[in-house]
């Protein structure tokens, strides 16, 4: 490890020592900066459009900085469709799913991490196998099942199917296994039950993992589209993504200033959360995406 850091530092020092290295460093910034601009451009275009009046939308060549800043677009968009309701639906559903997943996942993860029981390996393999089955492939039977249960077009349909997540269980299990077993033995000696030990010792000790797990669950649910599109038909149950799609679809595609304003406030919460926690978030992806 120290060798690695040492060589990196040497690399950094070397980079600025020589004029040729300075050219390299400049090129490095040009390439990465260029890519960053390309990535950010659609966001800037979205922001710029969201502040334009109708007349300015349809001018050639396109302008990047609106001549007149029309903040009214945001108000108009917000009032043009029941976005407050859509926000509430998405927030409610995502919170229920996130909290529910934390409960079911920590219980299951604790069993897999710390208990010896018959059929453990089979159960674990079964749980992991659910990650191979995609939502798209089971869409039809799940829909028919909800129809039978009379759950179509209810909050149940939006939440209950997502109350467990094998990735979450796997990640929490990894985290729980790092808690020293001696701690549990000592607690058990003092008469502490399993459930209490999980709630009062393990969960507080693995807060960062729980937090990133919660974040993943929340974001995935907030951004989900196919499932809410299919299981809800009435307007008052639409989530924000479905609501946005119908809002843009119904107007026949001319009100782009207002559409972009709506798109800004639909994507803003997740982007804000991402910027607040981006470091741990990105590291989490790097760690869980490819380990070892």
């Amino acid at each position, binding site marked *: 490890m120290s*060798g*690695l850091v040492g*060589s*990196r530092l040497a690399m*950094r020092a070397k*980079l600025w020592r020589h004029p040729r290295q300075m050219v390299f460093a400049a090129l*490095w910034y040009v390439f*990465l*900066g260029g*890519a*960053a601009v390309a*990535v*950010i451009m*659609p966001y800037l*275009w979205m922001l710029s459009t969201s502040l334009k009046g109708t007349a300015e939308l*349809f001018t050639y060549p*396109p302008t990047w900085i609106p001549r007149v800043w029309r903040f009214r677009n945001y108000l108009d968009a917000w009032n043009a469709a029941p976005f407050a309701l859509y926000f509430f639906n998405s927030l409610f559903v995502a919170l229920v799913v996130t909290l529910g997943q934390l409960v079911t*996942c920590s219980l*299951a993860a604790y069993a897999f991490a710390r208990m010896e029981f*018959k059929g453990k390996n089979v159960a674990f393999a*079964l749980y992991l196998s*659910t990650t191979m089955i*995609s*939502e798209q*492939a*089971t*869409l*039809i*039977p*799940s829909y028919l*099942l909800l129809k039978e249960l009379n759950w179509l077009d209810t909050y149940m349909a939006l939440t*209950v199917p*997502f109350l467990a997540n094998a990735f979450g*269980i796997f*990640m929490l299990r990894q985290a729980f296994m790092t808690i020293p077993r001696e701690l549990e033995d000592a607690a058990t000696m003092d*008469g502490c039950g*399993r*459930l209490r030990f999980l709630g009062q010792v393990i969960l507080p000790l693995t807060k960062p993992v729980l937090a990133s797990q919660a974040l993943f669950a929340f974001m995935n649910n*907030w*951004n989900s*589209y196919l499932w809410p599109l299919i299981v809800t038909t009435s307007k008052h149950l639409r989530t924000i*993504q479905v609501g*946005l*799609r119908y809002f*843009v*679809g119904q107007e026949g*595609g001319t009100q782009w200033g207002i559409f*972009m304003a709506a*798109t800004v406030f639909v*994507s803003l919460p*997740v*982007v804000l959360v*991402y910027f607040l926690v981006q*470091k741990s978030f*990105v590291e989490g*992806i790097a*760690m*869980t*995406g*490819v380990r070892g």
Partner: protein
Amino acid sequence: MFGGELRSQCNVLALESTGRYPVPLKSVKNWWLSWGRETCTAYLFLLPSFLVFAVFTFLPVIFSLVISLFRWNLPRQPVYIGLDNFKWLFTDPIDAPAFHQSVINSFYYALGGIPLNMAISLGLALLLNRRLRGVELFRTMYFLPTITSTVAVSVVWMWIYHPADYGLLNGLLLRLGLPPQSWLRDPRLAMPALIAMGIWKGMGYNVIIFLAGLQNIPAHLYEAAEIDGAGEFAKFRKITWPLLGPTTFYILVISVINSLKAFAQIHVMTQGGPLGRTTTIVYYLYQQGFETFRMGKASAVAVVLFALLLVLTFIQFKAVGSRVYYYD
């Protein structure tokens, strides 16, 4: 359930101090204390998640196979027709070409962007794999499209691809002296347009995975190569590329899997058109199931999709081990 814990501990303590139980235990009770109760507790802990998986994952998988054997056009009752749905998918004069086209479209979408996507991602990851000021900022920015919802991103790109002259991309083409295009309404260009957006959206994830792979390559290999006088290109060809192999393969398979699952961007941007050129397998399934409500036929498509995804996922698990990934 948990109250007996203390007593069993007392028994163990007594056993340790005196060498025998204070109260002689029957063998059944003994088994219950050592194995049965733990197993029972464990299954109680697993129960909530297991119920969800059983009802909303395992049951639908089996149910899917069963439904595919029926003609089930809602709201009518299902009729058993054996393997006819599959037969139609592959031989029917109307269904077969449409399904065939959707398979081709899916693979066009999945494979079309991969070489460019991986080249860009790897290039950026190599550039980011330096300790220079600003690395984290760039990394954060590249990842932004991945966390933004597909619907929001699709709406923005619809506006970028707007067919009129004032569309951003057409404006750029006009400035370069090229003719404007109708992008999403052009049968030849709709899919490449979706692919381009897909590259933009998925790149950040690939960069992070590549970067993690790069950082796992031991630095001493590069140091040894430098001592031997290897140049940057030789180091890349002899060290980086081979050692990055598993990561590259992982990204390749994950990209194909995720592309095959794509739905939101198609539903928002093209609705499978123009002329069915962006109707992928998933979109075809959606049309069969939720536009014409032919549940049996849609299930047959789902079974084919399921088999396809299963094979790919299996390859991924086999080749790279049980690595976990996020993000659809």
